[in-house]
């Protein structure tokens, strides 16, 4: 057996969390270092996996299979393909940065880092599991650490942190209840059809693709509800701005950066792949909801004065593009969807970490109170503006190519709707630039003159995520070749059904 690289990536943060249980709770620096080492191991190994993945071969690699639950046909199946590897890498980039963005946490640090590590491991698990049951185990495991982290280390501004935490949790759990109904029904129907229960993605998909149009449509509908509420699809998005505003920096980073991407990942790799007829039935509705989300949330962001709310709404708006792209159901669109999730993840995480530092130093997130932080904290300003520019899709940064791809894919299929979506970019530019101008480039306020710029460990998020922003912008092929090698075979398997379309 080869070196179980995916398992090691998955277990490194868990081992670090277990180690932390035995570290005395006063040893704040040791605690942070252990957490950093744990996530660094995962990051290094996932970089290694990303660059050693054989794209010409494609398909599932680094696979590892252990029979798990016989009568449910569950195997503990870890594997990665061109869609999961970028998401895995993204998780670890953000996870590693999030440890350093939380470097100044001194209230019960041990509990904080244990929960953060479990959260990171849970998110990673969803991206490398290749079995629906194992996927579900990881899918919901993340909810509880988040709840506890928000209520202990969150902040109450417009809404209390308790409210934010509960809203976040209940929204996502109710969404996942619908998803669960869909999964259980899908399991029962496929195992009745084939006679042999099999919950691995590929095994289940082969059978599920044969299900009648009607079954596919309602099952896809349930999955859309579940995954859609996780990816903050309009109108199920309202947890997202409130939740991010209440959450501590690291949670906002991970949640906006990767966790909500599980929704998009699930839509592509599970819902669309297994139920193509259902997907082609729902695609036009998804496109409409996606574009509505783009427009609505961009307008919402325009009206916000709290930095976290601006980015919160902006992330809803960006996820609208992903949903629109998935709804295209063509290779270009799916490529764009996955790439945009990666790009937005890096950007949102950088944004939230910079906002976190601003809040830590100024104790406010209220845009009119900031003045001209660019003079007082120039490095912070660089990070902030890089994220802002990526958000509005500046060429040369990572989000330009994915967004462009989405528009090409969507214009083909949806014409007019795509135009509305593209117009959303203008509003994005408006609110992002305005937030940047009023926070960084206004008249400097004397009370912030003593602020120390970010330095030492605080620089890690900026360096790690900033590098990815730029490299991804100049060498988009690094990202796109990988994604394409995952999307093409997936699309080929379902293209016949997609052409027929789903009918009730």
């Amino acid at each position, binding site marked *: 057996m080869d070196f179980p690289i995916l398992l090691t990536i998955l277990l490194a943060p868990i081992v670090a969390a277990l180690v932390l249980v035995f570290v005395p709770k006063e040893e704040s620096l040791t605690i942070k270092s252990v957490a950093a080492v744990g996530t660094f191991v995962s990051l290094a190994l996932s970089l290694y996996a990303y660059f050693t993945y054989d794209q010409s071969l494609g398909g599932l690699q680094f696979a590892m299979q252990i029979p798990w639950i016989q009568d449910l046909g569950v195997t503990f199946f870890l594997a990665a393909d061109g869609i999961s590897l970028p998401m895995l890498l993204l998780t670890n980039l953000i996870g590693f940065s999030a440890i350093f963005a939380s470097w100044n946490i001194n209230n019960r640090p041990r509990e904080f880092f244990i929960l953060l590590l479990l959260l990171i491991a849970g998110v990673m698990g969803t991206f490398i599991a290749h079995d629906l049951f194992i996927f579900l185990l990881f899918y919901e495991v993340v909810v509880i650490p988040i*709840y*506890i982290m928000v209520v*202990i280390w969150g902040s109450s501004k417009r809404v209390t942190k308790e409210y934010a935490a509960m809203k976040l949790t209940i929204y996502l759990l109710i969404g996942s*209840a619908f998803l669960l109904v869909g999964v259980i029904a899908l399991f029962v*129907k496929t195992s009745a059809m084939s006679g042999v229960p099999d919950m691995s993605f590929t095994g289940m998909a082969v059978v599920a693709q044969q299900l009648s149009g009607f079954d596919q449509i309602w099952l896809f509908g349930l999955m859309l509800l579940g995954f859609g509420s996780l990816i903050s699809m309009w109108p199920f998005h309202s947890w997202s701005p409130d939740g991010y505003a209440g959450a501590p920096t690291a949670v906002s980073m991970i949640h906006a950066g990767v966790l909500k991407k599980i929704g998009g990942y699930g839509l592509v790799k599970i819902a669309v792949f297994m139920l193509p007829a259902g997907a082609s039935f729902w695609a036009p509705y998804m496109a409409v909801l996606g574009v509505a989300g783009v427009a609505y949330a961009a307008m919402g962001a325009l009206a916000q004065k709290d930095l976290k709310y601006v980015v919160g709404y902006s992330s809803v708006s960006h996820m609208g593009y992903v949903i629109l792209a998935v709804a295209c159901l063509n290779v270009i669109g799916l490529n764009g969807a996955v790439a945009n999730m990666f790009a937005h993840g890096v950007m949102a995480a950088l944004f939230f970490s910079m906002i976190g530092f601003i809040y830590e130093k100024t104790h406010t997130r209220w845009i009119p109170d900031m003045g001209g932080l660019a003079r007082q904290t120039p490095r912070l300003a660089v990070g902030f503006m890089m994220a802002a520019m990526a958000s509005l899709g500046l060429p040369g940064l990572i989000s330009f190519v994915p967004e462009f791809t989405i528009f090409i894919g969507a214009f083909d299929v949806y014409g007019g709707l795509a135009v509305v979506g593209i117009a959303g970019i203008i509003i994005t530019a408006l609110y992002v630039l305005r937030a940047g101008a009023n926070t960084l480039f206004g008249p400097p306020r004397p009370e912030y003159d003593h602020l120390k710029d970010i330095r030492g460990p605080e620089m890690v998020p900026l360096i790690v995520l900033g590098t990815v922003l730029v490299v991804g912008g100049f060498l988009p092929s690094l990202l796109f070749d990988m994604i394409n090698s995952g999307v093409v075979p997936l699309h080929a398997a379902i293209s016949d059904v997609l052409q027929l379309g789903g009918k009730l």
Partner: protein
Amino acid sequence: MTPFDFSMPINPAALTLEMLVAALGLGVLILGIISPKGARSGLGWVSFLGLMGIIGVAITMWGQSGELLAGMYLLDNYALFWKITFMVAAALVILGNMRYVDNVGHQAEYYSLTIFATLGMMVMASAGDLMTLYLGLELMTIAFVVLVCLRKKDNKSVEAGMKYILLAGMSSAVLLYGLSLLYGLTGSVIMLDISRIIAMQPVSSALVLALVMLIAGLGFKISAVPFHMWSPDVYEGAPTPVTSFLSMGSKAASFAIILRLFITALPGVWENWAMVIAILAGITIIIGNLVAIPQTSIKRLLAYSSIAQAGYIMVGMVTASEAGIKGVMFYAFLYVFATAGAFTVAAYFYNVTGSDELKDYAGLSQRSPLMAAVMLVALLSMAGIPPLAGFVGKFYLFKTIVDGYLWLVFIGLIMSMVSVYYYLRVALVMYRDEPKDPSPINVSGPVTVTLIVTMLVTLIIGIYPGPLSEVVNSAAHSFFLH
């Protein structure tokens, strides 16, 4: 109809478990009388080790099958699995609560009655005729009545005992009426014979009446809505270890017997009761979860949550299939561990602070990280959050009813997410709030062991349910072999 053949030799070895448990109960009672007052706290260890030994014997008997007394007493893996479950429940309750019991006093009575209640449950699991069923049920119930009012100087405890005996008596009467109707219609008390005779008759209105009586009488035992009114009061008033045993052992045993009665004796009229059970399950899940939301006492909260749990387990009965039975047994087994974990924390907390109020749990995560973690894991397992055992359990239960009862799947899963709301309120208090009294709580050795065992089992079954699932499959399979 087969008349009793009393000449048939009875193999006493088949009753080894029951005899051992009875001997243990009597032994503890006698030891309690002859030992000096100071030494009586050792009785807990005697009972615990005795039960562990008997569990060991039970495991070696895996695979036995047969009938005693022409079908009065059924021996199979199904019964054996339940018996092990009950003994595990009893052992956990005893191990986790020795200090609580020492504070209350009456150790000999407490331990021996707990063991006798277990014996009643074991008889129920093997019951193959209506008389044995009733015998086991009453043995268990009467032991519980005494246990509930064990804190005899506490008004609440005595009140709970009164309520329990009145309502248990009434429900027994209703059940007996149903059983006697069944006998009147078929002329037999042996379940297998009843099943054969009913299959030959048209469904009469008297049979429907009998069904209603049986559902009502047994619905009381599992505290299914609308027969649940007694349980919050009794759960709150009873000594916490008893509450714990009542909510897992008594409930599990009642499910064991309900499955036997309905699926062995009454499969012929399945279409007459399946929908009723499905609707009751739905209502039970909804009411249990909704009423739990405003509770401020941890024991009442757990009481309502256990009503909801009974609703989930009922889901497995609806299809009367092997998969459904498997779901019930699997869920009941893991429910034992979750309940034992939560109640052991509650009992120990009461010992230290004298309070069952949720608000006094403030800052428990700082005073005792282990207790807070176990409580959280237990509650989340009941809510069905992966990777804890409850998730797999619910998966097994709800997958049986996707075809035909999809509405119930929706109710069940959405309500389990709603239940997270009140479970997380407990987490909120334990984790966010600063403790009023920051002194750490030192958890004693046996309690630590109980807590860690319940937490680990809940976690391991949740992550790797394969082995348990195989065992339960074999148990559920043996159900239909008679």
